[in-house]
């Protein structure tokens, strides 16, 4: 009987993993199958042309801008907020309120973020439709993801590390950056990787705040079009699934590159502290 239960659970574990991988393979396969024919040097590095046959270089640059700016703002704020919740706050009402707010933010549809961003950042703060307005909106979107994953990562840091450091006359702050954050790094990093995914995958919140201008952005105050918005527009209006899939391929490669370098950096960091 026990063996049966064990085997059943084993089977379910394998089955689930198999399903997840199968879905992964199917989606990636679908995207490559549909889009690979369009991939070419000109497609990736060429300028966009509204008359067809153009490239997506301006969108790639815009996408990288939005990832960069959003993360530069959201990562420190998110990590520090998580630090406050885990390391500083007394577990009371305030923490509950903050945690509740954070969690509620994760469930808000991006279209609402977009409308909010369009009113708050674009109009009220007079940033206009721009990369910066979109990045600020995205910051709000990914903040809860970073806060929650960082909190979890901090929880796993053994209390003994904190005690050890404090007993050596270090302040909480010193303890934080010398011991706690380094050992929470892998968890924090996976939160950042998820955030990158969220930023890259976003469309509604971006086109309402950055617009859809298909030209190379002059600055972060320019209106511009990200890869995902581009794929959204071509799906929505032109029904051009091949083009959308080709953009998907570029995104996959882009994210892969970012993730690999993030993992590489964290390995480097760990080497410095661990081995």
């Amino acid at each position: 009987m026990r063996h049966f239960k064990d085997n059943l659970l084993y089977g379910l574990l394998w089955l689930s993993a198999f399903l997840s991988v199968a879905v992964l393979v199917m989606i990636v396969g679908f995207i490559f199958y549909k889009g690979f024919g369009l991939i070419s040097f000109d497609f990736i590095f060429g300028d966009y042309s509204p008359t067809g046959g153009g490239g997506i270089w301006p969108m790639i640059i815009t996408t990288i801008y939005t990832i960069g700016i959003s993360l530069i703002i959201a990562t420190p704020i998110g990590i520090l907020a998580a630090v406050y919740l885990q390391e500083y706050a007394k577990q009371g009402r305030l923490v509950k309120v903050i945690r509740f707010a954070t969690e509620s933010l994760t469930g808000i549809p991006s279209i609402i973020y977009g409308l909010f961003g369009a009113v708050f950042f674009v109009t009220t703060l007079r940033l206009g439709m721009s990369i910066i307005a979109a990045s600020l909106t995205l910051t709000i979107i990914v903040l809860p993801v970073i806060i929650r994953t960082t909190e979890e990562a901090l929880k796993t840091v053994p209390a003994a590390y904190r005690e050890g450091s404090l007993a050596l006359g270090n302040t909480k702050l010193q303890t934080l950056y010398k011991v706690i954050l380094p050992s929470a790094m892998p968890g924090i990093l996976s939160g950042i990787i998820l955030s990158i995914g969220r930023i890259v995958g976003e469309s509604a919140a971006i086109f309402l705040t950055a617009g859809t201008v298909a030209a190379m952005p002059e600055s972060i105050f320019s209106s511009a079009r990200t890869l995902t918005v581009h794929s959204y527009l071509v799906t929505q209006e032109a029904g051009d699934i091949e083009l959308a899939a080709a953009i998907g391929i570029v995104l996959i490669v882009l994210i892969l590159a970012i993730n690999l370098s993030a993992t590489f950096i964290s390995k480097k960091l760990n080497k410095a502290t661990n081995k």
Partner: protein
Amino acid sequence: ACTSDDKNSSQASTSKDETIAISGSTSVGPLAEKLAHKYAEQNNTNIEINQIGSSAGITNAISGVSEIGMSSRDLKEEERANKLNEVVIAYDGIVVVTHPSNKVKDLTLEQVKQIFTGKVTNWKEFGGDDMEIVVVSREDGSGSRDAFQEIVDYSSGQLIKNAIIASGNGNIKTTVANNKHAVGFISFEYIDDSISTIDINGVEATADNVLEQKYKLSRPFLFVFKEGQLSEAGQRFIDFILSQDGQSIAAEAGAIPIK
């Protein structure tokens, strides 16, 4: 960096003198982009086009975020109250489309109405195979849908309840192309061989037929701007669109010129 040089047009966007901000309808957007592209080749003007939906465009035109709004629907009362001017820059033909395998190729306006209001639910009634009809419509508020309903003569309340609602021409096209039961409507510019088009009252859906008023399903593409807010550059761009050159570009892009 102020003197414009046509040969440099690839980096032109960084050295243009004036900027015209335009935002609005996703169906007008592609046409406007093409017009702007051509216009920018000859003029020292940077034109930013944001395709974010008619309403958002009109709102932007009112709030001043954009100089010009693009709309594929008529203005609402509340919007008109803000002293908005409108210019028809072209017309857009609307075509009823089905799965390529569908044998039905010709319908009357009345039959179209029967389909979309759910009076007839099987293709065999119109000489097709014995299979259920799946209606695909656009979302409430869409310019194409407004125009389509007005001309076919039914109201949103009459639309068959279980109709699939797709956002955008592309989504209708993909939905119809993947379902042999389906029928929907899209702009002329998006016609390709993944779907088959239906003649209305025996008249084929072509720009010429629209211009000759034989084909009824069409609606205007609008530029709107706040009275007195249009810059000189904006005015010049609109003039260009309405000129012979502009209108032939529009025709090339699949839209119907305003004569």
